[in-house]
């Protein structure tokens, strides 16, 4: 199953945010989307998920245009991890994860023991089984993010789209979630994620797309694309890219 976009122009109504976007992600790939605030990452994700129509071009999921699929069919093909938010009602974390099963239930059906089992396994995988009975609204931002990732796993879709999955996590949980994403790609899921940290793209991206000033500024293998020159231009601060002993590369912005 591949998620692909061809000649995509995105925006809200008549307001065009970016155009000329082509990208693709399939089994075992991690496509990282970089771009400064306001470059249209979230709008792009909403378009990829079929939540808003593309202004031009087309998004396909497994070869079928997303616009012609039902919401349930889209949800069976691609799971979405939104940024952690605070809902109004205090569902237990277990129930929030269970909601990932909705696309596989009939209109009048309730989740059954098999669904509960899958939800429990997803929480186990992410290492949050102990949060199951806690109220989702009383968890920390990082814990909520982990619950949403577990929910996406419970959805059992071959594709995973994650909007800044590490944004509200502490240092340790960031590394943990990045490791989990790499493991998911290892299990042949296709992952598209946005991030503010080029290091994350360098660490686990198989491809990177850099969105800047309404167009794709660069695209390719992270090690080749993410140069000091490009990052300096896109983020507007001097950046140097260093290689650590062992070969891993990190981006270091100049401060002050």
């Amino acid at each position, binding site marked *: 199953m591949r998620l692909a976009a061809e000649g995509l122009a995105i925006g809200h109504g008549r307001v065009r945010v970016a155009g000329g976007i082509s990208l693709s992600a399939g089994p075992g790939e991690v496509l990282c989307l970089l771009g400064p605030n306001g470059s249209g990452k979230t709008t792009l994700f909403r378009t990829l998920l079929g939540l808003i129509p593309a202004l031009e071009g087309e998004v396909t999921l497994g070869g079928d245009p997303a616009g012609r699929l039902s919401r349930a069919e889209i949800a069976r093909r691609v799971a*979405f991890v939104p940024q952690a*938010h605070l809902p109004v*009602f*205090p569902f237990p974390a277990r129930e929030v994860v269970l909601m*990932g099963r909705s*696309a596989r239930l009939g209109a009048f059906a309730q*989740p059954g023991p098999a669904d509960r089992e899958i939800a429990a396994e997803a929480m186990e995988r992410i290492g949050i089984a102990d949060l199951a009975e806690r109220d989702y609204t009383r968890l920390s931002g990082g814990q909520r993010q982990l619950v949403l990732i577990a929910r996406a796993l419970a959805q059992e879709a071959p594709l995973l789209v994650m909007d800044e999955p590490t944004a509200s996590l502490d240092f340790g949980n960031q590394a943990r979630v990045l490791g989990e994403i790499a493991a998911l790609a290892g299990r042949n899921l296709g992952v598209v994620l946005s991030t503010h940290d080029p290091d994350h793209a360098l660490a686990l991206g198989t491809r990177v797309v850099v969105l800047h000033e309404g167009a794709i500024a660069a695209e390719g293998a992270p090690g080749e694309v993410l140069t000091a020159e490009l990052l300096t231009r896109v983020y507007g601060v001097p950046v140097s890219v260093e290689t650590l002993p062992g070969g891993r590369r990190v981006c270091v912005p100049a401060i002050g």
Partner: protein
Amino acid sequence: MGAGRRTLSGVRLGAGGVAPVALLALAVLAAAFLCLLAGPFEIGAGRALAILFGAEEGTREARVILGIRLPRVLAALLVGAALAAAGATYQAIFRNPLVSPDILGVSAGASLGAVLGIFLALPVAAIQGMAFAGGLGAVALVSAIGAAVRGRDPVLILILAGVVVGALAGAATSLLKVMADPYDQLPAITFWLLGSLAAVTGGDLWPTLPAVAVGLVPLVLLRWRINVLSLGDEEARTLGIEAARLRGLTIVCATLVTASVVALAGVVGWVGLVIPHLARMITGPGFGRLLPAAALMGAGYLLLTDTLARTMATTEIPLGILTAVVGAPFFLWLLMRGRRGWA
């Protein structure tokens, strides 16, 4: 942390599935029987039971129990259950624990319909029909506005449109009150706007009951999806739910339920706002358990309130006044407890 939920006193009750609902059902049943005994004409419990099981017919006592008190008790149960169930539904789908069944102009529209019916001196059945049509009409208008305004938060637009349509209907109702005959029509209008079950007869219940049932059944069936919808439209859509369609269907059902009982009892406020809060404290927000708990608590609450309304003083106190006197301070207390109160 144990499997339980905070209750009023902060004590944790088991969140176990059926037990709270079954207990509530028993309590409501017992209360209903006790309320059958309440009234100026004294009838003992044993005698009342005999009458209920058909062992006594044609006596004065039997006529009081079966002809006067039983319809009224059943009406109170039905109206309370319907308003609380509709309130729980609206709160879930609008993701706002402060909304009530009249949020989309149902009550205002139904009031306008009924007041117009009284003004035109129509028979009682026609007045109820007008109330029903007015309630549905107001919500249809609100939904049409919601569909016409695109590109904004659809929930916010619906609620604002409900306020606007409600205000317009309220203005039209006021105009009719000014024009109405002050000796004959105006008292009837006022009494109706305050809500009352005093005029309910057994025959009135029959058209209301199926209408309420038709509205409630889809809500029960869709209980899981309504949970998902309460996360918000976009998130529900990414989880595979056709959010706009589901909300539309749910609004139609909840409106049908509300309009049917407003047509029967007039405007009874606060029940649909306060009771779902209380129910949520016992069952948690899961709609599958919340809906029956809210319906039972609403039924019990309105039963007690209506029994007070008819027995407290020699003249009947309009129901809407009592529900406001009890509901408003309680709601204030909920607000002061802060966000915890949504639990």
